[in-house]
């Protein structure tokens, strides 16, 4: 990925200047998360149960995409196999649900841990690999893991898969909204934690290693360790997302985690804006709604039911190609650019106001 185009001057709207966010990372990100939570609460409580279900799905994809964005955009490591980490998370949580009666929280932590562990196993050799090699290895990972569940079908439920159970909703809240909220809270917590991390020395080390490994090591950064940490965090995020996906679908089977999922995650991440966290909301919205739009689109053009299943795939593929050749900053980058344009037009040319460092969160 080309490093983000330096922003130069980024004038802010006057009201933004007045509305100061706290500078302490936790406080700052909590405020943002609470604002997000308030908006999402308003959204979910006004929507139908089915739409709530979709909002929950968006939230879970945000988790996976944020992890991927950190890995690829900020640390320069590519993964074509994030679906595999989601599968590990989903199966781990589902196995615990089938065989034990633990708290959902513990099941989620187990999913995060299991996926993180696989991230460690893959991440250690990955430290020695350059782009194409790592891409090939993770591509193979995405194809290699799902058949294992078919091989030991008594444990993993074979084609039927494992069923998951959502904890019953308190009070009169409908189950879809309750699940959506579990997933939204998970997403917001993940984003807050990642945003904190990226504003610390770890975030700086990730980017430094991405830009120049030799200079990073001379600055005292343990390059290999930094890359493994990024990989584990990213895999752990995918694990949590996988566990949530299992909750959404109600059943975990290998059909949920084809290679296409991994590639769609990559496409959504690239389109949202590689290396950003907030841009992942755009990517997740696309992941959830693009298949629906393409179905209705192919209906409009009478392409037949066979075509509709593939139209979304084609669009994702075209998006990957076009974004890479024409606009490597994705939607979030495009919005930032447009925002800057609007305000630099307002404040007039030659406005040399202090520039603002572009934080990734």
């Amino acid at each position, binding site marked *: 990925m080309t490093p983000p185009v330096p922003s130069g001057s980024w004038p802010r709207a006057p009201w933004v200047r007045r509305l100061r966010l706290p500078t302490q990372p936790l406080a700052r990100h909590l405020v943002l998360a609470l604002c997000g939570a308030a908006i999402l609460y308003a959204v979910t409580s006004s929507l139908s149960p089915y739409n709530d279900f979709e909002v929950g799905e968006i939230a879970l994809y945000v988790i996976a995409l944020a992890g991927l964005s950190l890995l690829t955009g900020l640390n320069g490591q*590519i993964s074509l196999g994030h679906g595999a980490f989601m599968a590990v998370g989903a199966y781990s949580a589902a196995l615990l649900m089938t065989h034990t009666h633990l708290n959902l929280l513990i099941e989620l932590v187990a999913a995060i841990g299991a996926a993180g562990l696989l991230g460690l196993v893959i991440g250690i050799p990955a430290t020695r690999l350059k782009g*194409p090699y790592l891409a090939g290895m993770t591509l193979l990972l995405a194809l290699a893991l799902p058949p294992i569940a078919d091989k030991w079908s008594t444990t993993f439920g074979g084609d039927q898969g494992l069923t998951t159970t959502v904890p019953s909703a308190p009070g009169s809240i409908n189950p879809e909204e309750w699940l959506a909220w579990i997933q939204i809270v998970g997403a917001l917590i993940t984003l807050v934690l990642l945003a904190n991390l990226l504003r610390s020395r770890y975030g700086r080390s990730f980017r430094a290693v991405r830009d120049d490994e030799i200079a990073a090591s001379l600055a005292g950064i343990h390059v290999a360790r930094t890359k493994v940490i990024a990989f584990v965090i990213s895999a752990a995020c995918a694990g949590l997302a996988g566990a949530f996906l299992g909750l959404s679908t109600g059943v975990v089977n290998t059909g949920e985690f084809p290679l296409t999922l991994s590639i769609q995650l990559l496409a959504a991440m690239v389109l949202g804006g590689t290396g950003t966290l907030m841009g992942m909301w755009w990517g997740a919205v696309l992941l959830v709604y693009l298949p629906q739009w393409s179905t209705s689109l192919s209906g409009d053009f009478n392409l037949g039911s066979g075509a509709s299943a593939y139209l979304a795939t084609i669009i994702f593929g075209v998006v990957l190609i076009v974004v890479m050749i024409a606009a490597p900053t994705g939607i979030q980058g495009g919005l930032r650019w447009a925002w800057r344009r609007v305000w630099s037009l307002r404040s007039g040319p030659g406005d040399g106001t202090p520039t603002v460092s572009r934080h990734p969160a």
Partner: protein
Amino acid sequence: MSLFVNVTLNGLANGMIFAALALALVLIFRATRIVNFAQGAMGMMTTFIASSLLGRGVGYWWAFLAVLVIGFVLGALVERVLIRPLQGKSELNPVIVTIGLLVVLEGLAGTIYGNSSRGFPAAYSQSGLTVGHTKIAFSHFDVFILVAVLVLMTGTLVLFRATSLGLRMRASAFAGEISRLLGVRVGVLLTLGWALAGVAGSLSGLLVAPTSSFGPYFMDLVLVYAFTAAVIGGLESPVGALIGGLITGLSISYVGGYLGSGLQPLGALVLLMVALMARPEGIFARPPARRV
């Protein structure tokens, strides 16, 4: 014992196919430092075209030939339209573009030809040969695979070693800038490398299709096996691709024969990881000089 013999023979035939696709990856990688993850999907697409031609009554060998030519053109087209604009950008960009091409081609194939897997004819009988009184898991078609891939490999080696075109191609792959200073049109030769890779990829598609569930995704696994093969072979040399192909083919054939076919991709993953841990740039590759 007979299981071992059959599994070995099967691995040999598969290994040759992986070698053909690995050769395609090598041709591109050594000239442009790009792994074309869409190589398998390009082979898938051309095989579907072959299937259409056969459906319209074109003779098998005419279709075979036509598809190799189409593979050549497709390879050149991809290089010119999609890869050339990425020159000078980060090494992750081509990875993502070729992945994008992979899903576009699979989506197109699914849209045009449907998802259900269909049959694809083999050039020769697929029933096992009889040696003495026992039937072995090696058919006339497997012999054809062996011969076809060996012809491809030999052709590539002759091209590289014995022709001035091959000399230009090697020179521009090893030292693009110096070659340009010697009047070599490096840009054209890079396109030619992609085009030849397209031929090798098409051939592998034609050889895989009869023995697999021929559909939009039938080359996915073949591609990652070929990638494993190419990496073991060092991603630089055609001979390495052949050796890597055989190692990979045999390994996953043994995994499939003794542990179950579902574990074959995992076997390949372990093989790839071991190979990469041992020598991150491939077993047969020269160690890279460190630049500071």
